[in-house]
């Protein structure tokens, strides 16, 4: 051992350590990767059920590079279609799962999947702690909202016309970001989905 060339010894030590480490990780991956994938899938199914109220099953379809989830009730009747929309927020990427009726004229419900907006201000798009009785009021405004003519937002006043929502005071940029990403993705996805004729 002592006689072994120094530089060869260095290579041997590093190689053996890396090989053992790789072996441990490969073994470990064999039983965690399935669980992680299963979890992500079950999360997705659960989320689709939330944004498509009344659906019990959902299947995913790739159309023109966009993934659509088609939710059906227990009689096999389509309840609606859901898709993931992303857009730039105030300081993070906002990712929303949107559930719409089969003709894509009305939002049934939606769920913010990912965001890292300013805590206490932009995060009110998910959870407004100053509104103790209804912390999810911002998202709830989109339930059963007609989007035939797009969505617009109002500052500091209650919406009166269809397709209008109220922006969050102190988080106009985040509120507008959600509206804009919805408008853009609904218009393009509606075209793809209705043209494909999938039901």
């Amino acid at each position, binding site marked *: 051992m002592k006689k072994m060339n120094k530089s060869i010894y260095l290579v041997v030590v590093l190689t053996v350590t890396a090989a053992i480490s790789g072996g441990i990780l490969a073994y470990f991956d064999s039983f965690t990767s399935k669980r*992680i994938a299963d979890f992500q899938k079950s999360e997705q199914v659960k989320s689709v059920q939330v944004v498509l109220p009344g659906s019990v099953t959902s299947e995913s379809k790739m159309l023109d590079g966009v993934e659509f989830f088609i939710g059906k009730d227990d009689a096999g009747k389509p309840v609606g279609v859901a898709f993931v929309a992303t857009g730039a927020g105030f300081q993070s990427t906002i990712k929303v799962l949107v559930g719409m009726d089969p003709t894509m004229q009305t939002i049934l419900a939606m769920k913010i999947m990912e965001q890292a907006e300013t805590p206490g201000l932009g995060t009110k798009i998910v959870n407004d702690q100053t509104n103790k009785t209804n912390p999810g009021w911002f998202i709830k405004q989109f339930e059963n909202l007609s989007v035939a003519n797009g969505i617009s937002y109002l500052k500091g006043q209650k919406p009166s016309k269809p397709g209008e929502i109220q922006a969050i005071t102190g988080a106009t940029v985040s509120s507008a970001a959600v509206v804009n990403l919805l408008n853009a993705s609904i218009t393009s996805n509606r075209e793809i989905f209705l043209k494909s004729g999938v039901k």
Partner: protein
Amino acid sequence: MSTGKVTVWKDFAKGLWDENPSLRMLLGCCPTLAMTTSAINGFSMGIAVIFTLICSSAIISLMRNLIPKEVRIATYIIIISTFVTVVDRTMAAFLPAISKAMGPFIPLIVVNCIILGRAEAFASKNTVGRSIIDAMGMSIGFTLTLTFLGSLRELIGAGTIFSFQIMPESFIPWAVIVLPPGAFLMLGLIIGTVNWLNTQITKKTAH
């Protein structure tokens, strides 16, 4: 036997106060500042560090006579990253909500200077038993600090601790405390308080 007990306690306790990694040595500031937006985040970060530090210290101490000094850092990093990956995957598989909140900070434990620091300063020179005791003291000291800092920031910034409402309904949360500047403010205040306490203790013992 009694002297043996004293050294074990000394090896363990120095991480809690005298050589507390975050408050006295100012190591691992990146996770300390970034992961203490709430008590649970700070605590989870600490648990991940406890596991990684104890395992990597044990292995590095076991291999201390085999690792040539020219490639010691590279070898340490391989060992540390193995355990960090194990923690990362386990959290993603079993605690997905926390794993999501921690984002890139779990993989970043690989380059956390507390772990590399203990490997270099302690585990590479001492027996496995002492290294494990040292790692326990350091990582528990780190966890306690992060949980305390996280609780304080969550209390002022959101009015809750571990999501339990503490402040009265009328309390308006100071959002700045859970933002990055708040992390610096609160950590600075805590370090200042600890330094002041230490001078008081030294004064008392001098008398």
